[in-house]
């Protein structure tokens, strides 16, 4: 049995400790935010926050998350009450298929928490390890900038 704190809720789960965190979040906890993209930590679709740091849940054994706070896309906000990042992505229409967007938002969240007003170059460098195949990049960068502005205003 493993006890995990996911989105501020503590849960005790019967899972193999070597199971990657991603499958526990998706299959055991039925969360849809983190996505399976490569299982190799190459694309970023599975990104979640572990004690505020953006990590690749597809290669992180669930045992490494014990005693830490896991935050997923669902933990930021909802369509009724979106986080400023989610609000900014909606306002910029920064989604095509949307499969990579979890990783974009979670990676940007860790960036903005660390650096509230990053330059465009810093945003692009930070997201360089997150792949998007639809070509939504220009909108994603605009959305992160918009989110930074919204958060600065306390929105």
């Amino acid at each position, binding site marked *: 049995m493993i006890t995990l704190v996911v989105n501020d809720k503590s849960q005790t789960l019967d899972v*193999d400790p*070597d*199971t*990657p965190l991603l*499958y526990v979040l*998706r*299959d055991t906890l*039925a*969360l*849809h*935010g983190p*996505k*399976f*993209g*490569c*299982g*190799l930590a*190459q*694309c970023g*679709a599975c990104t979640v926050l572990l004690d505020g740091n953006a990590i690749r849940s597809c290669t992180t054994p669930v045992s490494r998350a014990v005693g830490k706070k896991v935050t*997923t*896309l*669902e933990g*930021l*906000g*909802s*369509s009724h009450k*979106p986080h400023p990042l*989610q609000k900014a*992505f*909606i306002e910029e*229409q920064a*989604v*095509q*298929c*949307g*499969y*990579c*967007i*979890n990783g974009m*938002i979670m990676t940007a969240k860790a960036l903005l928490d660390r650096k509230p007003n990053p330059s465009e*170059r810093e*945003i*692009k*460098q930070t*997201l*360089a*390890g*997150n*792949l*998007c*195949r*639809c*070509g*939504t*990049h*220009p*909108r*994603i*960068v605009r959305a992160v900038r918009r989110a930074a502005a919204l958060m600065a205003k306390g929105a």
Partner: protein
Amino acid sequence: MLTHQSTRRDFIKTSGALIVGFSLAGPMSAARGQTAGAGGKPVALDEVDSFLAIVPDGTVNVYTGKVDLGTGTRTALRQIAAEELDVPFERINLVEGDTALTPDQGPTWGSLTIQVGGVQIRQAAATARKALVELASKRLGAPASDLEVKYGVVRAKADPTRSASYSELIGDQEFHLKVDKSARVKDPASYTIVGKPVPRVDIPAKVTGEWTYMQDVRVPGMLHGRVVRPPALGAQLSSVDESSVSGIKGLVKVVRIGNFLAVVAETEWAAIKAAEGLKATWSPWEGLPDMDQLYQVVRQTPVAKDEVTVNVGDAKSALASAAKTVSATYEFAIHTHGSIGPSCAIADVRDGKLTVWSASQAPHWLRRDLATMLGISPSAIHVIYRDGAGCYGRNGHEDAAADAALLSREVGRPVRVQWMRHDEHGWDPKGPPTLAELRGGLDASGNVIAWQSEFWIPKVGAITEGVPMLAATLGGLPYKDNINPGNIFQNSAPPYAFPNAHAVCHRLETTPFRPSWIRTPGRLQNTYVNEAFLDELAAAAGADPVEFRLRHLKDLRGIEVLQAAVRRAKWDTRPSPKKSAASSPVATGRGVTYCKYENVRTYVAAVAEVEVERRSGVIRVKRVVVAHDCGQIINPDGVRAQIEGNVVQTVSRTLKEELKWNRSRVTSVDWVTYPILTFPEVPEIDIELINRPNDPPWGAGEPTAAIVPSAISNAVFDAIGVRLRTVPYTPERVKAAIRAQA
């Protein structure tokens, strides 16, 4: 006219509620409800009821066989229906890609969802609207010409209190009407919804984790499957050692059908571990060509037939008499689709019936292919679409569905098959290679008087059938033997008025990998070849590339789009290459390209600006300006998003992407071995949309991709005077081209 004999069937009353209830009830109960209620719903393309149902609560169900692959058509099709019916946008429910409920409008491909699917819905809506107004005319005792429709309510213009809503008018009835091709559609001048940048309906759920992608669908009693692919494409399975995985907790079964080998487990992780740990013996196989010999192999492949796509004047004689001639060979690599989410499907075989959840771009085709493989009637199969990751052509979704169907049949429970990354890169069908040779002749004034081109591309079997599925070919099960790379001959004919022109496509019997279509199939490669070679002729003539194109372009709409791009880019009029200091380590240049998509529809033109590092061979695409005319625009922000996506994806394909393999198998099996463009490499994109509200709407999902590779090639030539003729333009190739020129 409407007939009132039959009572409306349950599905109409319930299907709207099912859509609303989907997220609450979960996919399984929703899908079962749809199956149960779907018994009699019309799906024929000529029936209004196939496309539309007025629900008693005032909402409208719209049914489409087209599916939203991430392009935003789920919003645009609602706009079209809402506009034509005069109901609020929010009251449209859209049901996509459900073989029991939606008409077969063909696969979602070829930039045809709006152009064909949307126009069909528009005409059905116009027919329905006319019928509803006629009903209101009788009910309100007023001629139809004295009535107007607002928000789904028909009312007398003179006295709005005399009114009847659509649901009051149609009561408990179906339309029972054929789609009337002559039913008048609305005057675009009166549009309030079409042409507006309506925000996409799915984005709030997609940025909050509330959306259910195919990969998120779970059904009760479901098991997890993983397929173990052969270590070589043509290897035969000789033995399996099941004891190698017997210790894995949760493993349910090892399935072997011919060369189809798979595991099924209670949990996803157990399935992954079992697939990785399963020991099997396969025969050796080294039937793939040497990668370095690809284009020689293409050239030597037997030709099934020659397809002449343009033959004007006498190109051969004109070439012989030309004042100046140019010739060149072009090559375009094999590409993979590279969806960020690998293919996934769930299948449930029970009581002789099969239910499949799939992100297939062609649910109706998938149903037929599954029926062939399993030897059951298509009517026993229900395919339900759920969004996958972006789909840029026929990738692995159909294969995953076939995998899941076989496994569910074996274990008697629903099985979810999620392809791993190496399955997707290694085994999805590939965009075939293109080889082309061109010869051109100029007269003494530098005008093109001769154009001759030859393309070596695979043949196409039946375009109405899908690509053979791996589960069938590996499992030795029935399938229709088909080679279907899409309509890859298109745009082989240049869109210019040359007095003597000849283009021929040598359609080859085979191609090294199972082919399919990848975004802008053939149109991308052929436009690249034509537009880069035209640039070579412009340079030979000492002409500015834009002026040279305009000299030979007679299509007024084409001229307008080309001039729009050039104006917006502040084109520097002069011949290429640029006269610049050869010693400068970083050279800059600009290149132009024009395309009339498939030579019959959407017009696009681009100007690309690049930097080339001579020493490293690195190309940076700094800015791409696009002018785009797809006729009537339904949603301008949606069109912009498609143009942006096309530019980024095709810059990636042009600079980086190339399938790699050894004699046995694909070796580019992940994002390290098949890199794509990353954020710091993405160019600035500047777009000019030309809207023609009174013209038919054409596609926007692909055309811009066609103009990107040649715009880059031409810009690189402008910068350094070196012509790149093999895609991708990797630093190694750029350096080699520079060396070859020196």
